[in-house]
């Protein structure tokens, strides 16, 4: 199987170590993994390290038999797609052009062919923002820009897709829609998908497995229910978690100080 595995990942910024010897459980294609943990736990750092965006002080990243660390930027990006958290820029581009560039930017001197344009347009339709195609990116709301960011991640398919807090600026409905899209992409395209999430209920509902991080380390892995019900989660977040069951029999958690 073409699973993603990484071990001994250590990342340092200046003198501080922000990722301590992290070993990721092997993640299977078609699965959605939620990465949870409080602020500054190292979620973004871990995702960026997997995407090859931060220098690894130690450790290895493998996709099946291919070693990713040490690859050239554009080769790594072909295996792992990272969707950063916030968009915020001033480029005078329309949404469709931005998504098209996302597909082409990793290559030198490629002409935008019909299939590239089609793939970009399909990514917009997939994410549900076809009506924004001809709008300047800078005119969009934060939530809309977040959807554009996801479309950019989808425009060029890669075996691994990493979403850094993809729902942080979205309303209730769009959060659910985005995670549905993420699930569908993982299943249909057989993608290994990891999403950093803050909302534990979203993680329970949409993820197959869950990784809990704290202070640059992984402290629990397993199904979302197991991880969130484990003794770690309350201590890590510094809250009390009240658990209940929905009518559908799903776990529901409520945080309390």
């Amino acid at each position, binding site marked *: 199987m073409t699973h993603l595995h990484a071990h001994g990942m250590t990342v340092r910024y200046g003198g501080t170590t922000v990722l301590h010897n992290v070993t990721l459980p092997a993640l299977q294609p078609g699965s959605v993994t939620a990465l949870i943990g409080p602020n500054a736990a190292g979620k973004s750092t871990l995702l960026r390290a997997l*995407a090859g965006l931060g220098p690894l002080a130690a450790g290895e990243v493998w996709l099946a038999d291919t070693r990713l660390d040490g690859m050239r930027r554009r080769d790594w990006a072909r295996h792992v797609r990272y969707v950063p958290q916030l968009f915020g820029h*001033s*480029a*005078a581009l329309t949404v469709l*052009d931005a998504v098209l560039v996302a597909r082409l930017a*990793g290559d030198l001197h490629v002409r935008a062919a019909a299939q590239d344009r089609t793939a970009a347009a399909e990514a917009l339709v997939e994410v549900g923002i076809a009506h924004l195609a001809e709008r*300047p990116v800078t005119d969009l709301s934060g939530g809309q820009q977040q959807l554009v960011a996801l479309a950019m991640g989808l425009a060029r398919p890669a075996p691994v897709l990493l979403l850094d807090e993809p729902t942080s600026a979205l309303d209730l409905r769009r959060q659910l829609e985005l995670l549905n899209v993420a699930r569908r992409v993982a299943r249909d395209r057989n993608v290994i998908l990891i999403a950093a999430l803050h909302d534990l209920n979203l993680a329970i509902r949409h993820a197959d497995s869950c990784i809990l991080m704290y202070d640059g380390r992984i402290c629990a892995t397993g199904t979302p229910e197991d991880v969130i019900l484990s003794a770690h989660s309350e201590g890590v977040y510094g809250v009390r978690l009240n658990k209940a069951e929905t009518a559908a029999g799903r776990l529901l958690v409520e945080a309390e100080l």
Partner: protein
Amino acid sequence: MHSTDVPHIDGGASRAPAPLRQGVAALLWAHQARHRRKAVITLSALILLAVLVIMDFGSGPAAISPPDLLRALFMPDTISGGTRVIVWNIRLPVALMALAVGAMLGLAGAQMQTILGNPLADPFTLGVSSSASVGAAVAITLGLSVVPVAGTALVTLNAFVFACGASLLVFSLTRIRGVTPETMILFGIALMFSANAVLGLLQYSSSESQLTMIVFWMMGSLTRASMDKVYIASGVLGVGVFFFWRMRHALTALRMGDDRAASLGVDVSRLRLWAFIVIALLAATSVAFVGVIGFVGLVGPHIARLLVGEDQRYFLPLSMIASACLLVAASILSRTITPGVIYPIGIITALIGVPFFLALVLGRRKVM
């Protein structure tokens, strides 16, 4: 090499259900329509540029009729020697030099704004023009050349070498400290102030006639153009266009932020460094040949951005065309304001550039 080791994942149109395919078709139709509009804008600008170049070529202190101009160009043997000299040694080099330098400054400005993510950047932001002026002033006052056997080209060569040296300095400092726009701008500004101080010192210690030469050199003028310089400038411009056109998608992605570009597979530091080298080459060549011509490299890309946005496929050519239009128009103006007098073109571009620039900024709308 590209996709052999990547598990194949189908992202094409094949599996799309019918409604999806219809939505996609509508999107693509609107997209193509907008791109045609941008192509028309670019083509119109190109036609305007051609008209301006012909006007520039046709105007000057010596009244030469259009048929004579054509004959001098294509059948030089059938025309008097005086006319031939005017056409081949003055009119043609000046018109082509305005074209080439305008395009170089536009390209350098557009890409400087792209890699620094700053609309105020222009080819001279990083102290290239100040350093070139120091080089020219050193040649004029001290008669010193950094290149042996320079002869009459002493000033030009010195200016070029100093401009390149300055860029190399910023380049190496940037490499040590990390390739961010902030470090580049800070080093550039530091360099500009140091160069200006050295320039002041040289001016202070120079004789009256040397001072006049320095001041005149710094004003920027096309009268120093020759066909040899036109060939060299065209060659450098060609290198620049080739490099930046190859990088066009990566450069567009860079405008969406370093992080985003990197996540899309762009090696941001590498791209920024190489772009910087090519920009320095373009700016150094133009400043060495025609002196300091301000505002063209700043305003041209702004016009292009307002008209077609920042998709490099249109932004890149239109920045060059718009800047060339401005410089050629300024060249015509410099000779027609007062008949018989040719004003230094640097003065004209600054004088018309500033109000034009203000009008652009104040009347800013989204066109794209």
